[in-house]
């Protein structure tokens, strides 16, 4: 594997996952390279969020190989994966409501990182994040519970960035927020990408995914049914109709 010229940041082979007794994922294969924004698409219940949770090690039962930066992490628990540089932004926000904005960021803080080749990774400090999210900068002392849904969404992303992740797993960023906030999210993702961040996002909103991503995987009933660039997906009417139902 190391012989490849540009080793994938994340390589997933044959990922199976269960919720209780029900198997949700069946042999999912995917990869993300450095600097890419990849969308994981599909209908509700297709297994998008389950995939991200399994990658983070948050499911009790999963099987298959997950290699991150060339290292097998399939046996690791969530905090170990996070310390290796996997960042997770959950779909239901989950900000710490009794903690202030600044404290929420502090929880996410991890040491600065360097890529294995020695180059500096994208590292964040609170001032840098307040610049990226001016809203948050104006309310550093406010408890997370007293923010609007859109502001909470931003805070969750910022909190994960504090861990200086090599790869960000972004779960349904557009779900349940106003269109104007969805647009802000899209612009934020494009900004991060411009700075060299790598992102794997799960998304139902085709317009949103087409706007921000380079490549897409389409999931249906826990299996990958399509893999290709956004242009290929846009051209493939059959896949769009069958699995995305516009």
């Amino acid at each position, binding site marked *: 594997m190391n012989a490849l010229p540009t080793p994938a940041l994340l390589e997933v082979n044959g990922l199976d996952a269960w919720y209780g007794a029900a198997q949700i994922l069946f042999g999912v294969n995917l990869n993300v390279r450095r600097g890419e924004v990849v969308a994981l698409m599909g209908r509700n219940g297709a297994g998008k969020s389950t995939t991200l949770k399994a990658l*983070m090690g*948050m499911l009790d039962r999963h099987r298959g190989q997950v290699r991150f930066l060339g290292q097998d992490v399939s046996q690791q628990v*969530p*905090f170990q994966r996070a*310390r290796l540089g996997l960042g997770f932004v*959950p779909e239901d926000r*989950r900000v*710490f409501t009794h903690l202030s904005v600044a*404290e929420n960021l502090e*929880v996410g803080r991890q040491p600065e990182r360097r890529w294995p080749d020695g180059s500096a990774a994208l590292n964040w400090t609170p001032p840098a994040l307040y610049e990226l999210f001016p809203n948050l900068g104006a309310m550093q002392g406010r408890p997370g519970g007293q923010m609007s849904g859109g502001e909470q969404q931003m805070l969750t992303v910022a909190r994960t960035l504090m861990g200086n992740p090599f790869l960000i797993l972004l779960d349904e960023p557009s779900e349940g927020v106003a269109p104007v906030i969805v647009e802000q999210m899209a612009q934020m993702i494009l900004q991060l990408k411009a700075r060299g961040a790598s992102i794997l996002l799960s998304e139902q909103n085709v317009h949103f995914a087409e706007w921000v991503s380079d490549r897409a995987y389409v999931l249906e009933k826990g299996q990958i049914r399509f893999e290709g660039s956004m242009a290929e997906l846009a051209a493939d009417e059959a896949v769009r109709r069958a699995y995305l139902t516009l």
Partner: protein
Amino acid sequence: MEFSALLAQLLNGLAEASSLFLVAAGLSLIFGVTRIVNFAHGSFYMLGLYVAYSTVEYLVGRLGPAGFWVGLVVAPVAVGAFGALVEIVLLRRIYKAPELFQLLGTFALVLVINDATLYLWGPEELLGRRAPGLAGSISLLGRQFPTYNLFLMVIGPLVLGLVWLLLARTRWGVLVRAATEDRQMLGALGVNQAWLFTAVFALGALLAGLGGAVQLPREPANLALDLRSIGDAFVVVVVGGMGSLPGAYLAALLIAEIKALCVGIGSVHVLGLDFSLSKLTLVVEFLVMAVVLVVRPWGLLGKPQAGSRNSAPAEAPLRPAGNGLRWVALVVFVALAALPLLQTWLPYASVLAQDVLVSVLFAVSLHFIMGPGGLHSFGHAAYFGLGAYGAGILLKVLTLPMPLAFTFAPLVAGLGALLFGWFCVRLSGVYLAMLTLAFSQIVWSVVFQWEAVTGGSNGLTGVWPAAWLGDTAYYYLTLVLVAASVLLVRRIVFSPFGYALRAARDSALRADAIGIDVMRVRWAAFVVAGLFAGLAGALFVFSKGGVSPDVMAVGKSVDGLVMVLLGGIQQLVGPLLGASVFSVLQDSIMRATDYWRAVFGGVILLLVLVFPHGIAGFFQGLGNAWARLAARKPALLPREKRA
């Protein structure tokens, strides 16, 4: 009374408050982060005192007077380390179990630690030496005030300040506060929560140990301290508001000062009657708690509790009993009916069976509100006791004939439930549990102190059944009434009322939106449970010929909880199994060894670790696995038939 005497009492109250606060702060911290209601916290307090006694004795011999202060530091640290060990070895295995199961686990720990202390330090009380340098007293407005109390007065606020700084100003504190909200998210952000939990638990144990250690010159170490201090600590934490440290200090102060006032004022003369306020000290904290919870349901400085993120999986829908279960029930009934005939060979069997039957009814009544109702009562013994005392008082004091006394007794308990239930059903979770506990303690203390009617600590004697209900007949009466009650409760659970109760438990929001009056349904269920517990109490008193206040003490309520949890809270047969196993185990272990508590605690721990869903849940799991296996075979059968 004199102002100076009152002042001295109030200063004493300040010193008391410090000690109360230290124990409660640790409990609150542990609950906040791990969501475990640590019953063993009082045991850490007790250990703190014992360990301080030994280390101080040893160190004073080596280091002279300075050894006292070193010992006072070493002891809490040792208790903290022990707490860490407990967390790593035991609690880590049960974080994913339902909340009440964790409670059961820590309760078992209380039993084990108590017997271990008995083994190591013996049964005698141990009074520590005076604090060097602070052994004397100072003069305040002409009264002597112990210098050591000044030290105690300072240490409470000091610890409050330090812990507050730790939580508010350090990264560790931020992580701890985040963990109280969402542990899973914390892990996904790269925090190793396992060690965070261990550290919090150790800190909590250390604070409890400190609370015990500083009592060394004032209070002899003894084996009753664990349950007494856990009771006090629960009250303080709940009155202050779960998870609020300033609230805990405020509550400790409030309770200690009110107690001090009661002692200080002595008796008052109102409307020609003499009231002895000092008698109130036994119950004053519970009165305060009841008042606070009724007025402020989340305590003085507490906030409404957010739902815990790791709730237990939903219970499976109830199914009517299958033929198998019906046959088992019938066989058990016939076997129980046959017991008196086997008197020659098993002379003790029907006596034990009588006790088991009463326990079963008690457990079934508690399970009715805990399982289908989701109302966790920590004071169910009150209704058992009201039934027992009700029967005794109706018979002995009001001289009613036995059958009438027996019939009215459950109604006495039902009335109690009607009154207390109205307040209780307005709360939920730990607050509900604590309010039920408060009411049961209030009833207990009334019974304990109202000697003219209840016989005080001696209780009532000579409460025997009518002559025509001689021993075997009374056993059959018990058998029939318990069996009928069990069937009736089952019937209710399957009726609209039982369903409404479960609906209110599953989602009060939805129940309200489809027009169910959630409070009223719960209140009605509370009364039903009270009635059946009262019947169990009445059956109990006539089988023993008397009753003492012990039947409504905290221990009895905890027994009920253990029975229900042991059996499995999600199954209707749970309380039957749990009560039977509990009673037989307790009976046989108690007769076999002096260290029965430790053995019993060990057995409960084992059950908690092996059967995290209770005994009935375990069998249901086995049954499901069997059904799955069996489901594969029938596919072959039709073909074989045809062939």
